[in-house]
């Protein structure tokens, strides 16, 4: 079990005047709709428990209104909780004093926003330097540090431009550089790439994955896009109406969706391109076919099987054989699961 960086425990958030009094109603089973109707309070998060391991990408996924943006704002306490705990390295963020919280935000967690939220009156360089200046660094120290990150995200030469002069993709690179330059080990990304068009989005995902390979930050990534979640997430948490529906790594979620909501969510993904043979392999199985790494996706495995005219493959992980998958098993795994497709809209 890797170190836990962030532990969210029994977190509740209810928007409204008497939010603390409403918890008992929610605990006794009142639904979001009922609470709104009878008490005029909005239930945003209900008993959320998430353990986030260090140095990985934790994706939190859900439709709009599922509470994911509210949840991420609890981690650096931009939103005050109704009740619960938010432990970061064992310290409860939610009970920090104002000055401790300032220190936490300055040095331990930085954030990237969906709508970029750059400072329009500051140049790109000044935007990038913002976190460092707030930390109290002088210009001559902050400038080279920021420049390094601007170069790293591909913004060399734009230092003296203003945000309005850049395209959306470029603006979010500034947002990323601004967050990275503080050297915080937690990176909070609130639908950071959702406002970008698909090609630019993939591009930015690559930038992030690339950075993550060398930085190993603990990333909390909010998205409503499953493809994005599968691409960058080491772990995925699915939220619905403020409740955690399922948590697990991408493979588990695809193979064993917890309920209809999740299976509807994963209906349209490209299964052969996402599923890895390691998660399909039968540990007791044996095959005459070629050996392949556990992280190979089914699509590539099928190609290899057909080329080598075998009817299965051996699965290898870290040089050890961990089982085999037959052609039939592979095809089973990529078939769309049965069940009526209601459409994700019906869950709103």
């Amino acid at each position: 079990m890797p170190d836990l960086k962030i532990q969210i425990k029994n977190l509740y958030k209810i928007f409204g005047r008497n939010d603390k009094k409403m918890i008992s109603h929610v605990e006794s089973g009142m639904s979001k709709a009922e609470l709104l109707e009878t008490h005029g309070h909005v239930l945003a998060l209900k008993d959320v428990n998430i353990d986030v391991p260090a140095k990985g990408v934790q994706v939190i996924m859900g439709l709009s209104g599922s509470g994911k943006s509210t949840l991420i704002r609890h981690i650096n306490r931009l939103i005050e909780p109704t009740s619960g705990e938010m432990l970061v390295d064992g310290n409860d963020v939610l009970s920090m004093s104002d000055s401790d919280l300032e220190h936490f935000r300055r040095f331990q967690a930085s954030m990237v926003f969906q709508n970029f939220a750059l400072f329009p009156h500051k140049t790109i360089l000044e935007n990038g330097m913002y976190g460092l200046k707030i930390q109290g660094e002088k210009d001559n120290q902050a400038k080279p540090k920021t420049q390094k990150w601007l170069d790293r995200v591909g913004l060399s030469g734009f230092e003296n431009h203003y945000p309005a002069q850049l395209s959306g993709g470029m603006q979010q690179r500034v947002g990323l550089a601004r967050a990275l330059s503080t050297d915080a080990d937690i990176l909070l990304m609130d639908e950071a790439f959702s406002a970008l068009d698909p090609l630019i989005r993939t591009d930015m995902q690559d930038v992030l994955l690339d950075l993550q390979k060398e930085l190993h930050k603990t990333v909390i990534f909010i998205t409503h896009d499953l493809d994005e979640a599968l691409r960058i997430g080491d772990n995925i948490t699915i939220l619905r109406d403020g409740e955690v529906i399922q948590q697990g790594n991408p493979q588990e979620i695809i193979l064993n969706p917890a309920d209809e909501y999740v299976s509807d969510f994963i209906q349209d993904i490209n299964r052969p391109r996402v599923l890895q043979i390691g998660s399909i392999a039968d540990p007791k199985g044996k095959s005459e076919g070629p050996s392949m790494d556990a992280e190979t996706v089914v699509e590539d495995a099928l190609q290899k099987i057909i080329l080598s005219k075998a009817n299965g493959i051996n699965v290898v992980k870290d040089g050890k054989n961990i089982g085999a998958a037959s052609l039939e098993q592979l095809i089973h795994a990529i078939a769309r699961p049965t069940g009526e497709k209601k459409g994700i809209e019906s869950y709103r």
Partner: protein
Amino acid sequence: MSFFTKFPAMGRTDLRDFKKGIDGKFKEFSREWGEGIEAFFDPLYYFLNWFEKLLNATPWPIIILIVGALAYLGSRSWKLSVGAMVSFLLIGYLGMWKNTMSTVALISVSTLLCIVLGIPLGIWMSRSDRVQKIITPILDIMQTIPIFVYLLPVVMLLGIGKIPGLIAVCVYAMPPIIRLTNLGLRLVNKDVLEAADSFGANYRQRLFSVQFPLALPNIFAGVNQTIMMALAMVVIASMIGVKGLGMPVLQSIQNQYLALGLMNGLAIVALAIIFDRVSQQYGKRLQRHREGGHDA
């Protein structure tokens, strides 16, 4: 049935005593505190006098050059700068130089006073809805109450002269800067403020690095309005003995001097236009970042 046809007003003697009581109390207060309050305003009085004397003692060509230079610095426009210098030459040629200097001194000092008091008040107001709820009606009163009504107690307390004039001008001219500072600060995009918060900025850092700079266009509109309203008060201020361009206008009303009134009136207008254009251009230049963008 006289109850319904005649309003049940307070008795005539009661009413007279009531009014007399208030007048008496205020006179007492004025006698007791008048000098102290006057002493409180002394620094302001000396500053205003010093500034007026400075303007009058400076040779006129230098003033013209300073006017041109300030107009250019503010607006970066040669046209405006030359226009301002020509206006001042014309004003001087028509014999209104001294009065214009007095008016410029009064307007400058009162605008400065309004900014120094108004911007912090606006900031305070933007921080708290409760403060806003209390200050807004006060500003409404300041702007709508007939000027003579508040001139009266001011004159009773401080006599006639420059300080009561300055106070009268500021009471009328300060509301816009307070309102627009408050509005500007409140209108700053919440997302950007959230971003500042997320980096651990405290209130002061957030205010000075993000909120205030982004509110500047509105705050500047407030400064501009304050200058304009201060100029509008010049004639009224002359009624309580403030020297300047208002005095001849007042005389010309009383004696039907058409030309005198017109000339001095137009001089006030010229000042207003110069102040307005220069401050507006300056305000625009503060928003350099909005240039050349596609979503600005």
